[in-house]
Protein backbone atom coordinates (compact mmCIF):
# COMPACT_ATOMS: atom_id res chain seq x y z
CA UNK A 1 0.00 0.00 0.00
CA UNK A 2 1.13 3.55 -0.74
CA UNK A 3 2.32 6.07 1.84
CA UNK A 4 -0.50 7.55 3.94
CA UNK A 5 -1.66 10.94 2.64
CA UNK A 6 -2.79 12.15 6.03
CA UNK A 7 -1.60 10.53 9.20
CA UNK A 8 -2.26 11.29 12.87
CA UNK A 9 -0.05 9.81 15.56
CA UNK A 10 -0.73 9.83 19.30
CA UNK A 11 -3.27 12.65 19.25
CA UNK A 12 -4.47 13.70 22.70
CA UNK A 13 -7.24 16.10 23.58
CA UNK A 14 -9.02 16.82 26.86
CA UNK A 15 -12.09 18.89 27.57
CA UNK A 16 -11.82 19.89 31.21
CA UNK A 17 -11.42 16.57 33.00
CA UNK A 18 -12.69 14.48 30.11
CA UNK A 19 -9.99 12.82 28.01
CA UNK A 20 -11.65 12.60 24.61
CA UNK A 21 -8.55 11.36 22.80
CA UNK A 22 -5.81 9.44 24.61
CA UNK A 23 -3.19 9.04 21.91
CA UNK A 24 -5.32 8.26 18.89
CA UNK A 25 -3.79 7.21 15.55
CA UNK A 26 -5.35 7.45 12.14
CA UNK A 27 -4.25 7.21 8.52
CA UNK A 28 -5.86 7.64 5.12
CA UNK A 29 -4.39 6.92 1.67
CA UNK A 30 -5.15 8.54 -1.69
CA UNK A 31 -8.05 7.05 -3.62
CA UNK A 32 -9.57 5.10 -0.76
CA UNK A 33 -12.59 5.43 1.48
CA UNK A 34 -11.40 5.02 5.06
CA UNK A 35 -14.24 4.66 7.52
CA UNK A 36 -13.70 6.00 11.01
CA UNK A 37 -16.06 4.12 13.30
CA UNK A 38 -16.64 3.91 16.99
CA UNK A 39 -19.36 4.05 19.59
CA UNK A 40 -20.69 7.36 20.93
CA UNK A 41 -17.94 9.08 22.87
CA UNK A 42 -15.16 7.16 21.14
CA UNK A 43 -13.66 10.45 19.94
CA UNK A 44 -14.51 10.33 16.23
CA UNK A 45 -15.89 13.86 15.99
CA UNK A 46 -13.06 15.28 18.09
CA UNK A 47 -10.46 13.63 15.86
CA UNK A 48 -12.17 14.89 12.70
CA UNK A 49 -12.42 18.41 14.11
CA UNK A 50 -8.68 18.33 14.89
CA UNK A 51 -7.78 17.07 11.42
CA UNK A 52 -10.03 19.61 9.68
CA UNK A 53 -8.71 22.55 11.67
CA UNK A 54 -11.68 23.43 13.88
CA UNK A 55 -10.04 22.16 17.10
CA UNK A 56 -6.43 22.30 18.29
CA UNK A 57 -4.94 19.07 19.68
CA UNK A 58 -3.21 18.96 23.10
CA UNK A 59 -0.51 16.61 21.85
CA UNK A 60 0.57 14.24 19.10
CA UNK A 61 1.63 14.88 15.53
CA UNK A 62 -0.15 15.25 12.21
CA UNK A 63 1.71 14.34 9.03
CA UNK A 64 0.50 15.39 5.60
CA UNK A 65 2.24 13.91 2.57
CA UNK A 66 5.03 12.81 4.88
CA UNK A 67 5.81 16.15 6.52
CA UNK A 68 4.63 17.34 9.90
CA UNK A 69 1.96 20.05 9.73
CA UNK A 70 -0.14 22.15 12.09
CA UNK A 71 -3.74 22.61 10.98
CA UNK A 72 -4.75 25.54 13.12
CA UNK A 73 -7.74 26.88 11.20
CA UNK A 74 -10.25 25.59 8.63
CA UNK A 75 -8.51 27.84 6.10
CA UNK A 76 -5.20 26.09 6.79
CA UNK A 77 -6.89 22.74 6.11
CA UNK A 78 -8.35 24.18 2.93
CA UNK A 79 -4.93 25.30 1.74
CA UNK A 80 -3.65 21.73 2.16
CA UNK A 81 -6.52 20.50 -0.02
CA UNK A 82 -8.63 19.18 2.84
CA UNK A 83 -12.42 19.75 2.76
CA UNK A 84 -15.09 18.76 5.26
CA UNK A 85 -18.78 18.00 4.90
CA UNK A 86 -19.99 18.91 8.36
CA UNK A 87 -22.81 17.02 9.99
CA UNK A 88 -24.82 20.28 10.18
CA UNK A 89 -23.82 20.91 6.51
CA UNK A 90 -22.64 24.50 7.26
CA UNK A 91 -24.78 25.98 4.50
CA UNK A 92 -26.23 29.49 4.46
CA UNK A 93 -29.96 28.71 4.03
CA UNK A 94 -30.90 32.15 2.69
CA UNK A 95 -28.36 32.00 -0.13
CA UNK A 96 -28.70 29.99 -3.35
CA UNK A 97 -26.64 26.87 -4.10
CA UNK A 98 -24.09 28.77 -6.20
CA UNK A 99 -23.48 31.27 -3.40
CA UNK A 100 -23.01 28.39 -0.98
CA UNK A 101 -20.66 26.52 -3.30
CA UNK A 102 -18.48 29.62 -3.59
CA UNK A 103 -18.87 30.80 0.01
CA UNK A 104 -15.59 32.42 1.05
CA UNK A 105 -14.15 31.82 -2.45
CA UNK A 106 -16.33 34.16 -4.47
CA UNK A 107 -15.30 34.91 -8.03
CA UNK A 108 -15.04 38.58 -8.90
CA UNK A 109 -15.30 40.29 -12.25
CA UNK A 110 -12.12 41.00 -14.15
CA UNK A 111 -10.51 44.44 -14.03
CA UNK A 112 -11.50 47.45 -11.96
CA UNK A 113 -14.95 46.12 -11.03
CA UNK A 114 -13.28 43.04 -9.61
CA UNK A 115 -10.95 45.12 -7.52
CA UNK A 116 -14.02 46.89 -6.13
CA UNK A 117 -15.37 43.49 -5.14
CA UNK A 118 -18.03 43.09 -7.82
CA UNK A 119 -19.09 39.44 -8.00
CA UNK A 120 -19.08 37.45 -11.20
CA UNK A 121 -22.41 35.79 -10.49
CA UNK A 122 -22.84 34.39 -13.99
CA UNK A 123 -19.51 32.54 -13.84
CA UNK A 124 -20.28 31.16 -10.39
CA UNK A 125 -23.72 30.02 -11.52
CA UNK A 126 -22.22 28.40 -14.61
CA UNK A 127 -19.55 26.51 -12.70
CA UNK A 128 -22.05 25.43 -10.07
CA UNK A 129 -24.33 23.99 -12.73
CA UNK A 130 -21.35 22.19 -14.24
CA UNK A 131 -20.29 20.80 -10.87
CA UNK A 132 -23.83 19.55 -10.23
CA UNK A 133 -24.02 17.99 -13.68
CA UNK A 134 -20.62 16.29 -13.22
CA UNK A 135 -21.65 14.91 -9.86
CA UNK A 136 -25.10 13.89 -11.07
CA UNK A 137 -26.93 16.24 -8.73
CA UNK A 138 -30.34 17.02 -10.20
CA UNK A 139 -31.35 20.53 -9.18
CA UNK A 140 -33.60 22.27 -11.67
CA UNK A 141 -34.05 25.51 -9.79
CA UNK A 142 -30.52 26.58 -8.90
CA UNK A 143 -31.77 30.11 -8.22
CA UNK A 144 -33.83 29.06 -5.20
CA UNK A 145 -32.67 29.57 -1.63
CA UNK A 146 -31.09 26.52 -0.03
CA UNK A 147 -33.78 26.81 2.66
CA UNK A 148 -36.36 25.81 0.05
CA UNK A 149 -34.52 22.63 -0.94
CA UNK A 150 -35.27 19.17 0.42
CA UNK A 151 -32.91 17.52 2.90
CA UNK A 152 -31.34 15.39 0.19
CA UNK A 153 -30.80 18.33 -2.10
CA UNK A 154 -29.13 20.28 0.69
CA UNK A 155 -26.88 17.34 1.47
CA UNK A 156 -25.99 17.20 -2.22
CA UNK A 157 -25.07 20.89 -2.21
CA UNK A 158 -22.78 20.38 0.80
CA UNK A 159 -21.16 17.27 -0.70
CA UNK A 160 -20.79 18.97 -4.10
CA UNK A 161 -19.09 21.94 -2.45
CA UNK A 162 -16.52 19.70 -0.79
CA UNK A 163 -16.07 17.64 -3.97
CA UNK A 164 -15.58 20.78 -6.05
CA UNK A 165 -12.80 22.24 -3.94
CA UNK A 166 -11.09 19.18 -2.48
CA UNK A 167 -7.76 18.17 -3.96
CA UNK A 168 -6.47 15.69 -1.36
CA UNK A 169 -8.73 14.64 1.54
CA UNK A 170 -12.44 15.03 2.23
CA UNK A 171 -14.03 14.35 5.62
CA UNK A 172 -17.69 13.35 5.55
CA UNK A 173 -19.36 13.42 8.95
CA UNK A 174 -22.54 11.30 8.85
CA UNK A 175 -23.29 12.30 5.25
CA UNK A 176 -26.44 10.18 4.95
CA UNK A 177 -27.78 10.40 8.52
CA UNK A 178 -30.75 12.61 7.62
CA UNK A 179 -31.60 11.02 4.29
CA UNK A 180 -34.10 8.54 2.93
CA UNK A 181 -33.18 5.35 1.09
CA UNK A 182 -33.01 6.77 -2.45
CA UNK A 183 -31.21 9.90 -1.39
CA UNK A 184 -28.58 8.01 0.63
CA UNK A 185 -27.93 5.72 -2.31
CA UNK A 186 -27.32 8.81 -4.37
CA UNK A 187 -24.90 10.32 -1.85
CA UNK A 188 -23.06 6.97 -1.60
CA UNK A 189 -22.71 6.98 -5.35
CA UNK A 190 -21.30 10.50 -5.13
CA UNK A 191 -18.77 9.44 -2.49
CA UNK A 192 -17.56 6.58 -4.72
CA UNK A 193 -17.11 8.92 -7.64
CA UNK A 194 -15.07 11.32 -5.52
CA UNK A 195 -12.86 8.43 -4.39
CA UNK A 196 -12.44 7.18 -7.95
CA UNK A 197 -11.00 10.56 -8.90
CA UNK A 198 -8.07 9.87 -6.55
CA UNK A 199 -9.28 11.73 -3.48
CA UNK A 200 -8.89 10.27 0.00
CA UNK A 201 -12.33 10.04 1.61
CA UNK A 202 -12.76 9.77 5.38
CA UNK A 203 -16.23 8.52 6.21
CA UNK A 204 -17.62 8.94 9.70
CA UNK A 205 -20.78 6.91 10.07
CA UNK A 206 -22.92 5.02 12.55
CA UNK A 207 -24.57 3.08 9.80
CA UNK A 208 -22.61 -0.19 9.77
CA UNK A 209 -24.11 -1.68 6.58
CA UNK A 210 -23.19 1.57 4.84
CA UNK A 211 -19.64 1.41 6.21
CA UNK A 212 -19.24 -2.17 5.04
CA UNK A 213 -20.57 -1.25 1.60
CA UNK A 214 -18.53 1.90 1.03
CA UNK A 215 -15.29 1.57 2.93
CA UNK A 216 -12.04 0.16 1.57
CA UNK A 217 -10.53 0.24 5.04
CA UNK A 218 -12.05 0.61 8.48
CA UNK A 219 -10.36 2.17 11.49
CA UNK A 220 -12.01 1.62 14.86
CA UNK A 221 -11.79 4.12 17.72
CA UNK A 222 -12.70 3.18 21.26
CA UNK A 223 -12.39 5.42 24.33
CA UNK A 224 -10.05 7.82 22.56
CA UNK A 225 -7.59 5.34 21.01
CA UNK A 226 -7.50 3.32 17.81
CA UNK A 227 -8.20 -0.28 18.73
CA UNK A 228 -8.29 -1.94 15.31
CA UNK A 229 -7.80 -1.50 11.55
CA UNK A 230 -9.36 -3.73 8.94
CA UNK A 231 -9.40 -4.19 5.19
CA UNK A 232 -13.12 -4.02 4.59
CA UNK A 233 -13.08 -6.88 2.11
CA UNK A 234 -11.48 -9.28 4.62
CA UNK A 235 -13.68 -8.57 7.59
CA UNK A 236 -17.23 -8.94 8.84
CA UNK A 237 -19.57 -6.51 10.49
CA UNK A 238 -19.47 -8.66 13.64
CA UNK A 239 -15.70 -8.26 13.92
CA UNK A 240 -15.92 -4.49 13.55
CA UNK A 241 -18.71 -4.21 16.10
CA UNK A 242 -16.76 -6.41 18.50
CA UNK A 243 -13.84 -4.02 18.24
CA UNK A 244 -16.11 -1.00 18.69
CA UNK A 245 -17.73 -2.35 21.84
CA UNK A 246 -14.54 -3.66 23.42
CA UNK A 247 -15.24 -7.35 23.02
CA UNK A 248 -11.84 -7.35 21.32
CA UNK A 249 -8.64 -6.16 22.97
CA UNK A 250 -6.54 -3.19 21.93
CA UNK A 251 -4.98 -3.27 18.43
CA UNK A 252 -5.89 -6.93 18.01
CA UNK A 253 -7.50 -6.40 14.65
CA UNK A 254 -5.66 -7.46 11.55
CA UNK A 255 -3.59 -4.40 10.87
CA UNK A 256 -4.13 -3.25 7.34
Amino acid at each position, binding site marked *: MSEPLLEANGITKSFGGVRALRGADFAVHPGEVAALVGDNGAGKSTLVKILSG*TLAPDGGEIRFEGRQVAIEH*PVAARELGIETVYQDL*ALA*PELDPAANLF*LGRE*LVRPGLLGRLGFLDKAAMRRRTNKAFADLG*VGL*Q*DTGAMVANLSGGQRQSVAVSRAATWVSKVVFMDEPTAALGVVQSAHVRDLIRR*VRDSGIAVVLISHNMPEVMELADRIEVLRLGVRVARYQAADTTMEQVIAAMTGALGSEEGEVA
Partner: protein
Amino acid sequence: MSETREVPPAEVPDEVAPEPAGNGLRAVLRRRLTETTTWTFLILLGIVAGFAALRFQQFATVFNFRNIAADASGLLIIAVGMTFVIITSGIDLSVGSVLVFSGVIAAKVMLAIGGEGWGAIGAGLVAGLVAGLAWGVVNGVLVTKARVPPLIVTLGTLGMALGSALLITGGIDVRGVPLQLTTTIGIGQLGGVPYVVIIAAAVTAVGAVTLSMTRFGRYTYAIGSNAEAARRAGIDVDRHLIKVYALSGLLAGLAGMVSLARFATTTIGGHSTDNLAAIAAVVLGGTSLFGGIGTVLGTLVGVFIPAILQNGFVILGVQPFWQQVAVGAVLIVAVYIDQLKRRAQERGERR
Protein backbone atom coordinates in the same frame (compact mmCIF):
# COMPACT_ATOMS: atom_id res chain seq x y z
CA MET B 1 -7.02 27.35 -5.56
CA SER B 2 -9.62 28.25 -8.08
CA GLU B 3 -9.87 25.42 -10.59
CA THR B 4 -12.92 23.25 -10.35
CA ARG B 5 -11.89 19.66 -9.95
CA GLU B 6 -12.85 17.14 -12.58
CA VAL B 7 -14.76 14.24 -11.17
CA PRO B 8 -15.95 11.37 -13.37
CA PRO B 9 -19.42 12.24 -14.63
CA ALA B 10 -22.45 10.46 -13.30
CA GLU B 11 -23.84 7.68 -15.38
CA VAL B 12 -27.45 8.31 -14.40
CA PRO B 13 -28.09 11.93 -13.55
CA ASP B 14 -31.26 11.17 -11.64
CA GLU B 15 -32.99 13.57 -9.30
CA VAL B 16 -32.47 13.56 -5.59
CA ALA B 17 -36.02 14.71 -5.04
CA PRO B 18 -38.56 15.94 -7.54
CA GLU B 19 -39.06 19.68 -7.37
CA PRO B 20 -41.61 21.13 -9.76
CA ALA B 21 -39.86 24.37 -10.58
CA GLY B 22 -37.81 25.75 -13.43
CA ASN B 23 -35.22 28.41 -13.89
CA GLY B 24 -37.49 30.16 -16.38
CA LEU B 25 -39.52 33.30 -16.16
CA ARG B 26 -42.27 31.52 -14.25
CA ALA B 27 -40.00 30.50 -11.39
CA VAL B 28 -38.56 33.98 -11.17
CA LEU B 29 -42.04 35.50 -11.15
CA ARG B 30 -43.21 33.09 -8.47
CA ARG B 31 -40.23 33.98 -6.31
CA ARG B 32 -40.83 37.71 -6.82
CA LEU B 33 -44.47 37.37 -5.83
CA THR B 34 -43.62 35.67 -2.56
CA GLU B 35 -41.20 38.39 -1.55
CA THR B 36 -42.36 40.84 1.08
CA THR B 37 -40.75 43.68 -0.87
CA THR B 38 -43.12 43.15 -3.78
CA TRP B 39 -46.14 43.36 -1.50
CA THR B 40 -44.99 46.47 0.32
CA PHE B 41 -44.24 48.11 -3.01
CA LEU B 42 -47.80 47.37 -4.11
CA ILE B 43 -49.07 48.80 -0.81
CA LEU B 44 -47.03 51.96 -1.45
CA LEU B 45 -48.47 52.27 -4.95
CA GLY B 46 -51.97 51.76 -3.53
CA ILE B 47 -51.47 54.49 -0.94
CA VAL B 48 -50.17 56.92 -3.56
CA ALA B 49 -53.04 56.07 -5.91
CA GLY B 50 -55.56 56.46 -3.09
CA PHE B 51 -54.39 59.91 -2.05
CA ALA B 52 -54.05 60.97 -5.69
CA ALA B 53 -57.65 59.90 -6.33
CA LEU B 54 -58.96 61.73 -3.26
CA ARG B 55 -57.02 65.01 -3.56
CA PHE B 56 -55.28 65.06 -6.90
CA GLN B 57 -54.81 68.85 -6.97
CA GLN B 58 -52.93 69.07 -3.69
CA PHE B 59 -51.33 65.62 -3.44
CA ALA B 60 -50.02 64.77 -6.88
CA THR B 61 -47.88 67.82 -7.42
CA VAL B 62 -44.15 68.10 -8.04
CA PHE B 63 -43.97 70.52 -5.12
CA ASN B 64 -45.56 68.04 -2.74
CA PHE B 65 -43.43 65.07 -3.80
CA ARG B 66 -40.31 67.24 -3.57
CA ASN B 67 -41.23 68.04 0.02
CA ILE B 68 -41.94 64.45 0.93
CA ALA B 69 -38.61 63.35 -0.51
CA ALA B 70 -36.66 66.14 1.21
CA ASP B 71 -38.31 65.32 4.55
CA ALA B 72 -37.52 61.63 4.16
CA SER B 73 -33.89 62.07 3.02
CA GLY B 74 -32.26 61.95 6.46
CA LEU B 75 -34.22 58.87 7.51
CA LEU B 76 -33.44 57.17 4.20
CA ILE B 77 -29.68 57.63 4.72
CA ILE B 78 -29.87 56.08 8.19
CA ALA B 79 -32.14 53.27 6.98
CA VAL B 80 -29.67 52.22 4.26
CA GLY B 81 -27.03 51.56 6.95
CA MET B 82 -29.65 49.89 9.15
CA THR B 83 -30.49 47.51 6.28
CA PHE B 84 -26.94 46.12 6.28
CA VAL B 85 -26.96 45.77 10.07
CA ILE B 86 -30.32 43.98 10.20
CA ILE B 87 -29.34 41.60 7.37
CA THR B 88 -26.43 40.43 9.57
CA SER B 89 -29.22 39.72 12.13
CA GLY B 90 -27.99 42.65 14.22
CA ILE B 91 -29.67 45.90 15.24
CA ASP B 92 -28.44 49.48 15.71
CA LEU B 93 -30.48 51.51 18.18
CA SER B 94 -27.83 54.22 18.46
CA VAL B 95 -28.31 55.86 15.02
CA GLY B 96 -30.45 58.80 16.20
CA SER B 97 -28.06 59.67 19.02
CA VAL B 98 -25.02 59.23 16.80
CA LEU B 99 -26.71 61.56 14.28
CA VAL B 100 -27.13 64.20 16.99
CA PHE B 101 -23.59 63.70 18.32
CA SER B 102 -22.07 63.98 14.85
CA GLY B 103 -24.14 67.10 14.14
CA VAL B 104 -22.93 68.70 17.37
CA ILE B 105 -19.28 67.88 16.59
CA ALA B 106 -19.66 69.19 13.03
CA ALA B 107 -21.35 72.40 14.20
CA LYS B 108 -18.74 72.97 16.91
CA VAL B 109 -15.90 72.48 14.42
CA MET B 110 -17.51 74.87 11.91
CA LEU B 111 -18.03 77.46 14.65
CA ALA B 112 -14.46 77.10 15.87
CA ILE B 113 -13.05 77.64 12.40
CA GLY B 114 -15.51 80.46 11.87
CA GLY B 115 -16.43 82.27 8.72
CA GLU B 116 -18.75 81.25 5.97
CA GLY B 117 -16.35 79.46 3.66
CA TRP B 118 -16.59 75.99 2.19
CA GLY B 119 -13.39 75.24 4.06
CA ALA B 120 -15.21 75.42 7.38
CA ILE B 121 -18.08 73.37 5.98
CA GLY B 122 -15.69 70.73 4.64
CA ALA B 123 -13.90 70.49 7.99
CA GLY B 124 -17.26 70.18 9.76
CA LEU B 125 -18.36 67.45 7.37
CA VAL B 126 -15.18 65.44 7.93
CA ALA B 127 -15.46 65.86 11.69
CA GLY B 128 -19.10 64.77 11.67
CA LEU B 129 -18.40 61.72 9.50
CA VAL B 130 -15.43 60.68 11.65
CA ALA B 131 -17.53 61.06 14.82
CA GLY B 132 -20.25 58.83 13.35
CA LEU B 133 -17.72 56.29 12.10
CA ALA B 134 -16.07 56.17 15.53
CA TRP B 135 -19.34 55.33 17.29
CA GLY B 136 -20.00 52.68 14.67
CA VAL B 137 -16.60 51.09 15.25
CA VAL B 138 -17.25 51.12 19.01
CA ASN B 139 -20.55 49.31 18.40
CA GLY B 140 -18.93 46.77 16.10
CA VAL B 141 -16.00 46.00 18.39
CA LEU B 142 -18.26 45.56 21.42
CA VAL B 143 -20.62 43.27 19.47
CA THR B 144 -17.85 41.07 18.04
CA LYS B 145 -14.98 41.12 20.52
CA ALA B 146 -16.82 41.65 23.82
CA ARG B 147 -19.73 39.48 22.60
CA VAL B 148 -22.36 41.76 24.10
CA PRO B 149 -25.65 41.42 22.15
CA PRO B 150 -26.14 44.25 19.60
CA LEU B 151 -29.42 45.30 21.21
CA ILE B 152 -27.62 46.06 24.48
CA VAL B 153 -24.44 47.50 22.92
CA THR B 154 -26.34 49.99 20.79
CA LEU B 155 -28.81 50.78 23.60
CA GLY B 156 -25.73 51.66 25.65
CA THR B 157 -24.12 53.78 22.96
CA LEU B 158 -27.51 55.42 22.30
CA GLY B 159 -27.35 56.83 25.81
CA MET B 160 -23.62 57.54 25.68
CA ALA B 161 -23.71 59.42 22.36
CA LEU B 162 -26.72 61.53 23.30
CA GLY B 163 -25.36 62.18 26.78
CA SER B 164 -22.01 63.25 25.33
CA ALA B 165 -23.77 65.60 22.89
CA LEU B 166 -25.68 67.16 25.80
CA LEU B 167 -22.46 67.47 27.86
CA ILE B 168 -20.67 69.23 24.99
CA THR B 169 -23.51 71.65 24.37
CA GLY B 170 -24.84 72.03 27.90
CA GLY B 171 -28.19 70.95 26.49
CA ILE B 172 -28.58 73.98 24.26
CA ASP B 173 -28.74 73.54 20.50
CA VAL B 174 -25.73 74.83 18.59
CA ARG B 175 -26.75 77.53 16.11
CA GLY B 176 -24.63 79.68 13.85
CA VAL B 177 -24.08 77.02 11.22
CA PRO B 178 -22.52 78.63 8.10
CA LEU B 179 -25.29 80.23 6.04
CA GLN B 180 -23.82 78.79 2.85
CA LEU B 181 -24.53 75.28 4.11
CA THR B 182 -28.22 75.94 4.70
CA THR B 183 -28.82 77.99 1.56
CA THR B 184 -27.12 75.53 -0.78
CA ILE B 185 -27.27 71.99 0.62
CA GLY B 186 -30.15 72.75 2.97
CA ILE B 187 -32.72 74.33 0.68
CA GLY B 188 -30.96 74.45 -2.68
CA GLN B 189 -31.94 72.40 -5.70
CA LEU B 190 -30.23 71.02 -8.74
CA GLY B 191 -32.55 70.84 -11.74
CA GLY B 192 -35.57 71.00 -9.46
CA VAL B 193 -34.29 68.25 -7.17
CA PRO B 194 -33.22 69.29 -3.66
CA TYR B 195 -29.55 68.60 -2.86
CA VAL B 196 -30.51 66.57 0.20
CA VAL B 197 -32.61 64.28 -2.01
CA ILE B 198 -29.67 63.87 -4.41
CA ILE B 199 -27.41 62.95 -1.49
CA ALA B 200 -29.92 60.42 -0.14
CA ALA B 201 -30.49 58.97 -3.61
CA ALA B 202 -26.75 58.57 -4.14
CA VAL B 203 -26.37 56.80 -0.77
CA THR B 204 -29.30 54.53 -1.64
CA ALA B 205 -27.90 53.68 -5.07
CA VAL B 206 -24.40 52.93 -3.76
CA GLY B 207 -25.89 50.93 -0.89
CA ALA B 208 -28.12 48.91 -3.21
CA VAL B 209 -25.28 48.09 -5.61
CA THR B 210 -22.88 47.21 -2.78
CA LEU B 211 -25.38 44.91 -1.12
CA SER B 212 -26.55 43.06 -4.20
CA MET B 213 -23.48 42.97 -6.41
CA THR B 214 -20.29 42.93 -4.34
CA ARG B 215 -18.44 40.56 -2.06
CA PHE B 216 -19.11 42.94 0.84
CA GLY B 217 -22.85 42.43 0.31
CA ARG B 218 -22.48 38.68 -0.11
CA TYR B 219 -20.61 38.39 3.21
CA THR B 220 -23.31 40.51 4.85
CA TYR B 221 -26.00 38.04 3.75
CA ALA B 222 -23.87 34.99 4.56
CA ILE B 223 -23.14 36.13 8.12
CA GLY B 224 -26.81 36.88 8.78
CA SER B 225 -27.81 33.55 7.31
CA ASN B 226 -25.30 31.32 9.12
CA ALA B 227 -22.38 33.02 10.87
CA GLU B 228 -20.74 29.70 11.80
CA ALA B 229 -20.83 28.48 8.19
CA ALA B 230 -19.31 31.80 7.09
CA ARG B 231 -16.56 31.40 9.68
CA ARG B 232 -15.80 27.84 8.56
CA ALA B 233 -15.71 29.05 4.95
CA GLY B 234 -12.83 31.32 5.93
CA ILE B 235 -14.74 34.63 6.11
CA ASP B 236 -13.44 36.95 8.83
CA VAL B 237 -16.84 37.40 10.46
CA ASP B 238 -15.76 39.77 13.25
CA ARG B 239 -13.99 42.10 10.86
CA HIS B 240 -16.94 42.22 8.50
CA LEU B 241 -19.41 42.93 11.32
CA ILE B 242 -17.23 45.79 12.58
CA LYS B 243 -17.30 47.24 9.05
CA VAL B 244 -21.09 46.94 8.88
CA TYR B 245 -21.62 48.75 12.21
CA ALA B 246 -19.02 51.33 11.15
CA LEU B 247 -21.00 51.89 7.94
CA SER B 248 -24.18 52.45 9.95
CA GLY B 249 -22.37 54.97 12.16
CA LEU B 250 -20.82 56.73 9.17
CA LEU B 251 -24.23 57.12 7.50
CA ALA B 252 -25.72 58.41 10.77
CA GLY B 253 -22.93 61.00 10.74
CA LEU B 254 -23.82 61.97 7.17
CA ALA B 255 -27.50 62.22 8.13
CA GLY B 256 -26.43 64.51 10.99
CA MET B 257 -24.79 66.81 8.45
CA VAL B 258 -27.91 66.75 6.26
CA SER B 259 -30.02 67.62 9.31
CA LEU B 260 -27.69 70.54 10.13
CA ALA B 261 -27.97 71.82 6.58
CA ARG B 262 -31.76 71.63 6.56
CA PHE B 263 -32.51 73.06 10.00
CA ALA B 264 -29.44 75.28 10.61
CA THR B 265 -29.27 73.93 14.15
CA THR B 266 -28.36 70.67 15.88
CA THR B 267 -31.96 69.57 16.75
CA ILE B 268 -30.71 67.66 19.80
CA GLY B 269 -34.19 66.72 20.95
CA GLY B 270 -35.56 65.85 17.53
CA HIS B 271 -34.11 62.40 16.82
CA SER B 272 -35.13 60.23 19.74
CA THR B 273 -37.30 57.97 17.57
CA ASP B 274 -35.13 57.93 14.42
CA ASN B 275 -33.82 54.49 15.32
CA LEU B 276 -37.30 53.00 15.53
CA ALA B 277 -38.41 54.79 12.36
CA ALA B 278 -35.38 53.37 10.51
CA ILE B 279 -35.93 49.83 11.83
CA ALA B 280 -39.62 50.04 10.88
CA ALA B 281 -38.72 51.20 7.37
CA VAL B 282 -36.18 48.41 6.91
CA VAL B 283 -38.59 45.73 8.13
CA LEU B 284 -41.48 47.15 6.08
CA GLY B 285 -39.18 46.84 3.09
CA GLY B 286 -38.97 43.09 3.49
CA THR B 287 -35.70 42.74 5.40
CA SER B 288 -35.90 39.91 7.89
CA LEU B 289 -35.07 40.63 11.54
CA PHE B 290 -33.68 37.08 11.66
CA GLY B 291 -31.01 38.03 9.12
CA GLY B 292 -29.92 36.81 5.73
CA ILE B 293 -32.74 38.45 3.74
CA GLY B 294 -33.31 42.03 2.64
CA THR B 295 -32.75 44.69 0.00
CA VAL B 296 -31.96 48.39 -0.06
CA LEU B 297 -34.72 48.99 -2.60
CA GLY B 298 -37.18 47.45 -0.16
CA THR B 299 -35.96 49.87 2.48
CA LEU B 300 -36.55 52.74 0.05
CA VAL B 301 -40.18 51.63 -0.22
CA GLY B 302 -40.34 51.18 3.55
CA VAL B 303 -39.17 54.75 4.17
CA PHE B 304 -41.79 56.24 1.86
CA ILE B 305 -44.85 54.40 3.20
CA PRO B 306 -44.91 56.33 6.52
CA ALA B 307 -43.77 59.54 4.80
CA ILE B 308 -46.56 59.47 2.24
CA LEU B 309 -49.20 58.41 4.77
CA GLN B 310 -48.26 61.35 6.99
CA ASN B 311 -48.38 63.78 4.09
CA GLY B 312 -51.64 62.42 2.70
CA PHE B 313 -53.40 62.50 6.05
CA VAL B 314 -52.42 66.14 6.51
CA ILE B 315 -53.80 66.99 3.08
CA LEU B 316 -57.01 65.06 3.72
CA GLY B 317 -57.43 66.81 7.05
CA VAL B 318 -57.29 63.51 8.89
CA GLN B 319 -55.48 63.81 12.19
CA PRO B 320 -51.85 62.96 11.28
CA PHE B 321 -51.62 60.83 14.43
CA TRP B 322 -53.42 58.17 12.42
CA GLN B 323 -50.19 57.74 10.48
CA GLN B 324 -48.51 56.25 13.55
CA VAL B 325 -51.43 53.88 14.06
CA ALA B 326 -51.42 52.81 10.41
CA VAL B 327 -47.65 52.33 10.20
CA GLY B 328 -47.63 50.33 13.42
CA ALA B 329 -50.28 48.00 12.03
CA VAL B 330 -48.54 47.56 8.67
CA LEU B 331 -45.26 46.85 10.47
CA ILE B 332 -46.80 44.06 12.53
CA VAL B 333 -48.39 42.56 9.42
CA ALA B 334 -45.03 42.67 7.58
CA VAL B 335 -43.25 40.77 10.36
CA TYR B 336 -46.19 38.36 10.65
CA ILE B 337 -45.85 37.49 6.95
CA ASP B 338 -42.10 36.99 7.45
CA GLN B 339 -42.83 34.63 10.34
CA LEU B 340 -45.35 32.65 8.27
CA LYS B 341 -42.74 32.17 5.56
CA ARG B 342 -40.15 31.04 8.10
CA ARG B 343 -42.55 28.49 9.53
CA ALA B 344 -43.37 27.18 6.06
CA GLN B 345 -39.63 26.76 5.46
CA GLU B 346 -39.10 24.92 8.72
CA ARG B 347 -41.85 22.52 7.70
CA GLY B 348 -40.01 22.13 4.41
CA GLU B 349 -36.84 21.19 6.27
CA ARG B 350 -38.55 18.15 7.74
CA ARG B 351 -39.58 16.88 4.32
